[in-house]
């Protein structure tokens, strides 16, 4: 805006605003500081590399990676359909895809259980094929994919809308068939949005707790991911829980700075 440029003094905030803002910041900062203070630094490495910790860490990384891949494979096409097609019912489809964003994970997990559990809708047919999903590692991946999918779809759809259709129209007019347009023009254009979506989906998968616990239980090495391990160890081995928590806090911090931090470049950037 021309009459209120950057560095403007005009729209100064009333001073009293800073008090609740500081309180809000403390609400987040104090617990994080508390974690850091509680870390048993001399034993940190040993705690993080204990057998059960490593098992949980490896399981978490494996399942989060798998569910992120599943999110990309399913979510990018969904985002393309939402942003580029003109099917009827698109509005309903968008609502359905975004639902897990606000659905309590426990409810999501229960819904998955009723879908693929032994007594679920798809349970008997899957059983007939010799496939068991509930309370296996596959259930962990399923739960994580369910809750993480909307993060990827929202990121990619936003990027697709921002990129617009103009490059695609030009590419088609130059003779590129739809698949070539998609792979050589559309996807490269939305790569930053896709990357942000991948990071967010991975982070959400890594932290999944409620849905995983409900549909997959807590079996060491099979379904006990890092958040479950932390939850279980908080009483039996608090030091291990703290150490593992710190690992996840650092991961979260890296993700936030990577995905949202660019916003902070200047007051005018968005």
């Amino acid at each position, binding site marked *: 805006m021309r009459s209120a440029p950057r560095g403007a003094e005009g729209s100064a905030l009333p001073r009293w605003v800073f008090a609740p803002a500081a309180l809000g910041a403390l609400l987040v900062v104090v617990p994080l500081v508390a974690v850091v203070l509680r870390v048993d630094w001399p034993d940190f490495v040993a705690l993080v590399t204990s057998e059960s910790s490593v098992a949980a860490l490896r399981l978490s990384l494996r399942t989060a990676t798998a569910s992120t891949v599943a999110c990309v494979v399913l979510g990018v096409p969904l985002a393309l359909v939402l942003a580029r097609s003109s099917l009827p019912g698109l509005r309903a489809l968008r609502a359905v895809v975004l639902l897990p964003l606000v659905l309590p994970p426990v409810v999501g997990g229960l819904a998955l259980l009723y879908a693929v559990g032994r007594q679920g809708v798809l349970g008997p047919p899957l059983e007939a094929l010799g496939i068991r999903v509930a309370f296996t590692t596959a259930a962990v991946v399923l739960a994580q994919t369910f809750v993480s999918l909307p993060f990827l779809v929202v990121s990619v759809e936003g990027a697709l809308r921002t990129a617009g259709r103009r490059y695609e*129209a*030009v590419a*088609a*007019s*130059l003779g590129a068939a739809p698949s*070539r347009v998609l792979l050589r*023009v559309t996807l490269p254009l939305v790569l930053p949005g896709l990357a942000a979506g991948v990071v967010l989906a991975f982070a959400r998968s890594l932290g999944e707790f409620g849905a995983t616990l409900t549909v997959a239980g807590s079996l060491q090495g099979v379904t006990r991911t890092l958040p479950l391990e932390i939850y279980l160890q908080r009483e039996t081995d608090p030091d291990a829980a703290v150490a593992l928590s710190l690992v996840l806090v650092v991961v979260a911090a890296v993700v936030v700075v990577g995905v949202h931090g660019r916003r902070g470049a200047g007051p005018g950037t968005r």
Partner: protein
Amino acid sequence: MTGPGGLDAQLRFAPRGLVADVHLAPGEVLAVLGPNGSGKSTLLSLLAGLLRPTGGRIVLDGEVLAGEDGRFVAPHRRGTALLAQDALLFPHLSVEANVAFGSRSAGASRRAARDVARHWLDVTGTTDLAHRRPHEVSGGQAQRVAVARALAADPRLLLLDEPLAALDVGAAPEVRRVLRQVLRGTPRRSAVLVTHDLLDALALADRVVVLDGGRVAEEGAVADVLSRPRSAFGARIAGLVLLAGTATADGLRTGGGTLLAGLRDDDCPPGSAAVATFSPAAVAVHRDDPGGSPRNRWAAAVDELAPRGDLVRLRARLRPGGEEVLADVTASSVADLDLVPGSPVHLVVKATAVAVHAVGRPAPRAGGGAGGTR
């Protein structure tokens, strides 16, 4: 590069009320002019296959691209390369890879596509930029690369959508020169050029179609339409005042009864329907009746003053006829004359500055569109 046949299109798109027939001989360049919302961009989108027509047919070089039988050739199979206002170079590809994109899409080998790309980079004077990324070149350079990219796809028809509109004043002439060279050079290229810019039409096109409200308001050679507009919009884009009426022995009598002295065409006998045109710059504005020799001296009232570049365009209504006349005066004259809306003025135009010509169907061309004044 275009075979015999050229373009023969009856363009219909009901949602935007477009009903326009467009014909193009092989190698011809057609400029499409018209106000915003007149259907210029819809016309291009229909030709490119970005919109599905609601009727009519499009035939290019004998191939039916869209027809009433529901036939619709997908955009990538049409050979109608699009050059938009923004260069829209693919930002993740080098300049050379951008230019090679069309050949690669057509299945050419990497090597063959590179050779084609280099040829067109050379033609457009952008060889030095081959290995740069699009964000490393200027706006004018990017648009020249976009020209190269469009031509490297070897299109049967080039579609140009205001290709110079987004360029700054310094960059436009060079891009215009490149376009002139590739369109007007040997071999000539068939192209449809949507523009709002007279200079582009003058520099690049053989013929012009004036669209208004989705219909063809006027059609003809560029210089004809500019110097002798027959439609109100044609006059507007030519920057002329147009008054319609009946030819008289020494000029024209408008419907409102105003008499204009002017130079009458031979094909326009007294009593026939005619239009008189003159430039707003030829209109002198006085506060008091200046008297003297000019035969066109009218009392008028200022309706509106609007700045146009350095000049002020005065819109005045003649008394008693009620015809609207434009006059361009300098800002300092407006100050000197203390003009505000409502000021009474006297307008003077020399008879030699007024051209009177017949109104009729535009100079016919084989299969010409729905012409005539509107």
